[in-house]
């Protein structure tokens, strides 16, 4: 999203809720408690997610505030791992295994329970040797400014981030509206009250 260099892009949110007393220490502890943890061997298809440092997605220790908190700007990244199997190749391989099972027993059909067992075994075998796809969504949070810029516009990724942010910090991320730029609620009311201009002026 270009926090350190390049062009900066992202969706902006207001951060709503009360900061806890001594929030730096509180947030450090919460980030450490919800940091990304490598899953044990035999990870299935379930997603694994947690916070990582923006410097490197393998860095998950938030103890040193200087690594993620610059003045009142918090730099965070949410990592999500998920293993995916190639569906068509998986189906074809399973079908071959079913055929072998039938041939060994001289049967024409394979019972559903056996097929499910073969499927589970094949899935476990392939998941054990596959690497996950890794998604990392960066954000910069102005704690004093009460806003956050999130490096994605994807709705599903945004929803996940907002949920995890609430779980971690107890604070809501509210989508920012251009109307938030207006100084008073009277200004907002006055603008909303206007009838949209016709389409040739860019009104919808």
């Amino acid at each position, binding site marked *: 999203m270009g926090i*350190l260099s390049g*062009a900066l892009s992202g969706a902006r949110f207001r951060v709503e809720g009360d900061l806890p007393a001594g929030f730096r220490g509180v947030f450090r502890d919460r980030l450490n408690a919800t940091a990304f943890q490598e899953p044990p061997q035999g990870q299935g298809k379930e997603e694994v997610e947690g916070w990582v440092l923006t410097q490197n997605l393998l860095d998950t220790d938030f103890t040193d505030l*200087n690594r993620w908190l610059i003045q009142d700007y918090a730099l965070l990244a949410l990592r999500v791992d998920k293993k995916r199997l190639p569906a068509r190749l998986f189906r074809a391989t399973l079908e071959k295994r079913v055929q072998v099972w039938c041939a060994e027993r001289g049967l024409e059909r394979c019972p559903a329970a056996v097929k499910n067992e073969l499927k589970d075994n094949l899935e476990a075998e392939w998941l054990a040797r596959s690497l996950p796809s890794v998604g990392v969504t960066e954000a910069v949070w102005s704690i004093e400014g009460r806003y956050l810029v999130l490096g994605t516009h994807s709705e599903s990724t945004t929803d996940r981030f907002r949920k995890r942010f609430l779980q971690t910090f107890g604070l809501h991320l509210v989508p*920012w*509206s*251009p109307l938030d730029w*207006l100084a008073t*609620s009277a200004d907002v009311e006055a603008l909303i009250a206007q009838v949209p201009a016709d389409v040739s002026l860019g009104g919808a």
Partner: protein
Amino acid sequence: MAEAKDGLPILPHVAGEFYVWLWWASEQQSGRFDLGDPVGAVDAWIDDRLAFRLPSETRVSAIMTGDDAPDAMESRAALAGGKVVNELRLAIKRDDREFSVTLKGPAMHLGQAKLPAMVTEGGEEVVFERMHLYEELCLIVAGLFRHYAAVRASPAWEVDVVPALRRWVVGEG
């Protein structure tokens, strides 16, 4: 006004009108805007990208790029044909600092924001400086939007601005 559960509403027609007004006003005023406190005077002009959509759709249906994008006949023709500006690339100069940013969609997301390179070394200093510049950019865009909102809610919108915009769209202004 009751605030929606997820904050203030995002109104597609407001963004579309703001983009067109900004495009028109920057041409009328040679890019000069006096935005008052706390922004002051800035230069702002449409840079090298305009994207249009049909009013009934959310997807972009036409994109104009290049230095002459805001001056191209095709750009005004898109407006005259009823298309809505969905995003534009804006160049801004405030004092000696130059920014450029893409304002995108009904939410006016700030994308591809190029910030002046004031500090280039030292991780912490760079982040701190860039975030300050990002906030300055937001302040300027907010100032432009407030300026539009004030004009939009005033009698001058219907009396002066809309007729002038109509003439401009067809190349008479």
